[in-house]
């Protein structure tokens, strides 16, 4: 009898606490109906040297840039507040429509409020010879990460 009250309160508190945890966990879905973070971007021969390729921008928010030595993948998210910049081929720059940030084809910021360059994604060759881009690994210029071998695909 003497223990029934504390045990009752303990059980009640535990039930309340676990309901709270369950409610909070409910807000985090297990499956997302979003495009995958990694995707295969075709064969290297499908890209023209010196061009910023915009074919994957709508689906995966990534530009693939082909240079004479190889490839890098830029993530199409402005480093100011997260809008999607556009590639303006005539002016050879990325321009963000939200607040006017501008980036060179390399991803380096040169105008507007963006505080740092665009981020690059991991880019490697898959076993079947296709280019594999993985946005879950990001490389930031200001941290010196663009020299990482997976930030630039040498051909």
């Amino acid at each position, binding site marked *: 009898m003497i223990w029934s009250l504390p045990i009752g309160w303990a059980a009640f508190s535990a039930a309340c606490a676990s309901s709270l945890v369950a409610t909070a966990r409910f*807000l*985090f*879905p297990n499956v*997302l*109906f*979003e495009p995958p973070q990694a995707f295969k971007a075709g064969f290297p021969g499908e890209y023209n040297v010196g061009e910023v390729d915009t074919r994957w921008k709508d689906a995966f928010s990534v530009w693939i840039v082909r240079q004479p030595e190889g490839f890098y993948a830029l993530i199409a998210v402005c480093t100011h*507040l*997260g*809008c999607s910049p556009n590639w303006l081929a005539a002016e050879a720059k990325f321009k963000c*429509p*939200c607040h006017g940030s501008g980036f060179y084809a390399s991803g380096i910021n040169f105008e507007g409020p963006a505080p740092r360059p665009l981020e690059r994604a991991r880019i490697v060759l898959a076993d079947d010879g296709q280019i594999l881009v993985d946005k879950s690994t990001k490389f930031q210029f200001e941290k010196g990460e663009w020299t990482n071998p997976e930030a630039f695909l040498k051909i």
Partner: protein
Amino acid sequence: MATNATKPPEPFLTRTWDYITDTQIWKSIFRHGMPSTSRNRVLVVMTNVFLHLHPVKIRKSGVRLKFTWCMGGLTFFLFLVETFTGLLLMFYYRPTVAYAYMDIIDLAEQVPLGIMREIHRWGAHAMVITVWLHMFRVFMTGSYKPPREFNWNVGVILLVLTLLLSFTGYLLPWDQLAIWAITVGSNMARATPLLGYEGPGAQLLALGDVKMVHAGSDARFALLGGRFVGEGALLRFYVLHCVGIPLIAGILMAVHFWRVRKDGGISGPV
């Protein structure tokens, strides 16, 4: 017998009125007759669930338009307008990526009284303005001082809820302005202390090398239901806009009005 004969019969309307007010239905609803005496006025207010939130008596000087600007009342009126027009909009609007934008166009161009969404939008703008003016008035008249300090805090929360209603409603038209405005706005949640993956202290919450707080588990993710503003965000903002926030705001408004009475009515001019 003669005295009876000289008394004229009651007019028809008076007799009908007396009959209606004598029925059990009438008396079960209105228990205290006409509020013609001081005592009856108090009783009428106290026994009505809506009226009892308000003070029985207030100073004549306290309700002068020059003193209150009527901004608190106007804010509540606008909240009712938003509730009513919002309810009507819900009959047509579907919060999905496929339908949302087209339903907004449909509301403007095909649905009768195509101005309904504009009324909702103008009302929302007006409500933000009246809330600020109400707070300005309360501040300038010193009405936030004891014993009203608790009610000031309830009011501050109601201000935040009003702004959150505007923020969540902003996304629902699902046009470019909406999507990018909410993208920019919700990116702030990334910097939440501890709970945002770019916020201070987020690095501390890790089990060895495994981060507990990352882009797929932080405060922004819970708000948007995804890594970016998409289907999940639209539905979450819709539910918060139509049910979650109005419910909390409604409860706090009841507390707010009731505390005006409990804290001594509308404060007098300084």
